[in-house]
């Protein structure tokens, strides 16, 4: 390869390097301008004019940078300059290379020594090092700028800057500014107590969030002239970090936000989500209880609690009331709090020391569990469990508690058991006894059996007394009546000295009494025995005069569903003439339905999406309308047919 060929190749490499570095430096400088803009915007939001200047400034910086590099590298176009550039970096060539590439001389005309000298030039090495250095610097600066930019996240600013730039250049051309309500984003910031993540909705039609959440609507362009209205509350948008921004707080009731920009309007539904109060379930004690004597010792209580967001703490409430009528005392106390630390479910445990509750006969102890959530916006949400009531029976009977059958049944069971044992002994000793003695004892047992039977019937009467002179059967009384019947048969057999025959009846009766004794504990709370009023005697005997006000018909409450149906029908009629207006109407209907008919609200949401897309509109609207139709009446059977009637 001749020195000329080598220099030509070096020239091509150098030209390519100039181009590449020009591009890289242009990119670096453009990124540097954006970095400065983003950083400044973080500190002080850029004015719209400055924001619009970001894109041209970056482009200008890029062009300037590329121009400087190209200017510096302009000599790469000349072969002689390339040779000289090599000579500068290898002076020992003593212009041999410059002379070797001089077009005025051919190789044959050059001295052998000069050609050898030129051939010894390290052209490739010099070019390689130079290219590596130049491209390396450009690449490093480009990488640094890119990394910084990636950290700063310039997308929003660039989008806003491009929009602003386009708007300003467009307006100069006389074109109207586009709607600043598209694109639209809604950033939802749930209340801090909920610990839910922030959420960004793109082109929202509905924002569903917890009551008290911050909802920030954001769009491109300047804020001037953009407003947000909820009902009569109209507020202007503010300049955001990029574009305009307007913040609302999620209200307690569903509402529509109307975003306006000159002739443009956009509706967004605010669908508040309620933070439910905790749900508390008392697990121990399982049932209400009445104690015959004042209970002592420890009582374990336990409850479970759940919440949709997170529980804060829970405890048990105790309420002891003692006394009656207008002289009674109550004492309330609580168990230590149990922290849940935002868990969605948890258990509350406690142990009540009944000895410290100052319980006496007649006391009533109410126990219930309480749990709170962290809701500091509309709450705190308080959930309470069902209450367990523990009563201590009074002696003698009070108006509040009357101890009834348990003791008689116990006593009857013992008597019957004793009688059965005696009868059994009598049967086994029959051969040893004289007939008279045997008959005499059997007869005595018959009387004892009758005595027990009467006691059973007395309890039956007590159970079946409805308090006003009538009677009714209960499951318990039926059981005891059955035992009484068996005792009657046993009594008859014992009366004729046939204890063998009586024994099966007696065993059966004992089993029934045992079942009743084990299965039931009757504590009949105060029976209010109504007094019969002699209506005929007092009818219209009152002396006080009356001045009765006229009876006016009660106002019929409006049929909410029918109202919704009428509004939907009107919107559908409007749809053919003004689709946008119809969609706005349906948005308002949807807000009303969120409270009155949530299922219809869901269907309306689907219908609105279909309307915007123009797909499946009819079926979506028909489904919504069907949901509002009155339910079909269910008739138990075919109507009575009156035979013999003439057709009309």
């Amino acid at each position: 390869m001749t020195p000329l060929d080598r220099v030509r190749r070096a020239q091509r490499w150098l030209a390519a390097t100039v181009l590449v570095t020009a591009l890289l430096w242009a990119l670096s400088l453009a990124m540097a301008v954006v970095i400065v803009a983003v950083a400044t915007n973080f500190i002080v939001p850029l004015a719209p004019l400055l924001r619009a200047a970001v894109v041209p400034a970056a482009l200008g910086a890029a062009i300037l940078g590329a121009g400087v590099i190209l200017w510096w590298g302009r000599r790469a176009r000349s072969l002689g300059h390339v040779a000289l550039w090599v000579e500068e970096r290898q002076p020992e060539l003593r212009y041999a290379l410059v002379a070797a590439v001089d077009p005025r001389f051919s190789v044959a005309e050059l001295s052998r020594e000069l050609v050898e000298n030129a051939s010894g030039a390290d052209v490739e090495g010099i070019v390689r090092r130079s290219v590596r250095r130049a491209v390396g610097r450009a690449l490093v600066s480009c990488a640094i700028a890119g990394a910084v930019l990636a950290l700063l996240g310039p997308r929003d600013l660039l989008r806003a800057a491009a929009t602003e730039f386009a708007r300003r250049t467009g307006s100069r051309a006389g074109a109207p500014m586009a709607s600043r309500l598209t694109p639209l984003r809604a950033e939802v910031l749930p209340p801090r107590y909920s610990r839910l993540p922030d959420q960004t909705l793109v082109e929202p039609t509905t924002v569903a969030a917890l009551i008290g959440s911050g909802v920030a609507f954001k769009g491109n362009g300047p804020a001037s002239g953009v407003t947000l209205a909820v009902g009569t509350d109209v507020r202007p948008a503010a300049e955001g970090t990029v574009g305009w921004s307007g913040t609302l707080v999620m209200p307690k009731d569903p509402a529509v936000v109307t975003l306006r920009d000159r002739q443009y309007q956009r509706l967004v539904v605010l669908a508040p989500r309620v933070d439910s109060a905790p749900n508390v379930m008392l697990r121990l004690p399982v049932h209400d209880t009445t104690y015959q004597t004042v209970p002592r010792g420890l009582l374990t209580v336990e409850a479970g609690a759940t919440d949709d967001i997170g529980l804060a703490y829970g405890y048990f409430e105790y309420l002891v009331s003692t006394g009656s009528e207008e002289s009674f005392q109550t004492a309330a106390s609580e168990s230590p709090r149990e922290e849940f630390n935002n868990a969605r479910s948890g258990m509350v445990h406690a142990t009540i020391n009944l000895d410290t509750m100052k319980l006496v006969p007649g006391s009533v102890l109410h126990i219930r569990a309480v749990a709170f959530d962290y809701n500091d916006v509309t709450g705190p949400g308080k959930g309470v469990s069902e209450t367990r009531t523990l009563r201590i029976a009074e002696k003698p009977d009070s108006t509040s508690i009357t101890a009834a059958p348990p003791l008689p049944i116990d006593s009857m069971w013992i008597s019957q058991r004793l009688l059965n044992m005696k009868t059994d002994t009598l049967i086994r000793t029959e051969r040893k006894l004289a007939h008279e003695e045997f008959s005499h004892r059997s007869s005595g047992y018959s009387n004892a059996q009758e005595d027990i039977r009467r006691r059973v019937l007395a309890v039956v009467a007590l159970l079946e007394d409805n308090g006003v002179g009538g009677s009714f059967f209960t499951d318990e009384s039926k059981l005891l009546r059955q035992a009484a019947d068996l005792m009657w048969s046993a009594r008859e057999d014992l009366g004729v000295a046939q204890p063998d025959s009586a024994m099966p009846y007696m065993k059966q009766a004992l089993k029934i009494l045992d079942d009743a004794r084990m299965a039931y504990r009757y504590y009949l709370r105060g029976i209010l025995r109504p007094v019969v009023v002699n209506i005929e005697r007092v009818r219209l005997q009152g002396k006080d005069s009356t001045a009765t006000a006229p009876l006016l018909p009660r106002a019929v409450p409006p049929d909410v569903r029918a109202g919704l149906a009428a509004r939907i029908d009107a919107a559908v009629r409007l749809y053919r003439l003004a689709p946008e207006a119809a969609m706005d109407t349906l948005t308002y209907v949807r807000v009303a339905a969120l409270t009155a008919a949530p299922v219809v609200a869901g269907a309306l949401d689907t219908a609105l999406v279909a309307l915007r897309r123009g797909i499946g509109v009819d079926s979506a609207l028909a489904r919504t309308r069907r949901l509002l139709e009155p339910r079909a009446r269910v008739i138990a059977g075919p109507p009575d047919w009156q035979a013999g009637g003439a057709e009309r």
Partner: protein
Amino acid sequence: MSQFVFATAEYVSGDWESAPALPENLIDSVARYTSIDVAPVGVNVKLSSPELFDYPFVWMTGHLPVRLTDAERRNVKRYVERGGFLMIDDHNHDITGQFHKTVTEEIERTFGKMTRLANTHELYRCFFVFENPPPNTHHELNGYGDDLLHRYLDAVLVNGRIGLLYSNKDYSSEWNFHAETKKFMTQDPTKFGVNLIVYALTR
């Protein structure tokens, strides 16, 4: 037309039977002043039972704390929302008392906050006309309870109609006497009870 039967609410907690003579007295008054076909004897009805819906007017009272069971709460809510009239009277006439605290908590838990009934409400003129309603009782300033004259009654309104009426005036004590005693009185204190029943039956 079926007969009106006076019903006393029976609930699991507390002393629901604390005014035993009141039903007889109000039945007597209804017969004495109106032509309503009234049953000569009242009934006790459990708040959790389906029989509650057989009675358009139910009286509930007590001194002791009231904690409704879930079944009672559900049933009472349905009863009031479907046209029943539940009258709850604080037998302690004490807004700091346990009956008041617990029963109002139960009402708010079931129905939300109660409405203060305007003293121009038609309840006070639907049969007898009361000039300074609600009518006071002799028990309000008897040294027990809160010793206050309670100026208003509270209510749960269902479509504008009273579904639940709550009173701290202690009508349970005022009307808890044998009906025969009325002949010794110059003014019959149970007249407001007639208004309650007439309202429940006609509005």
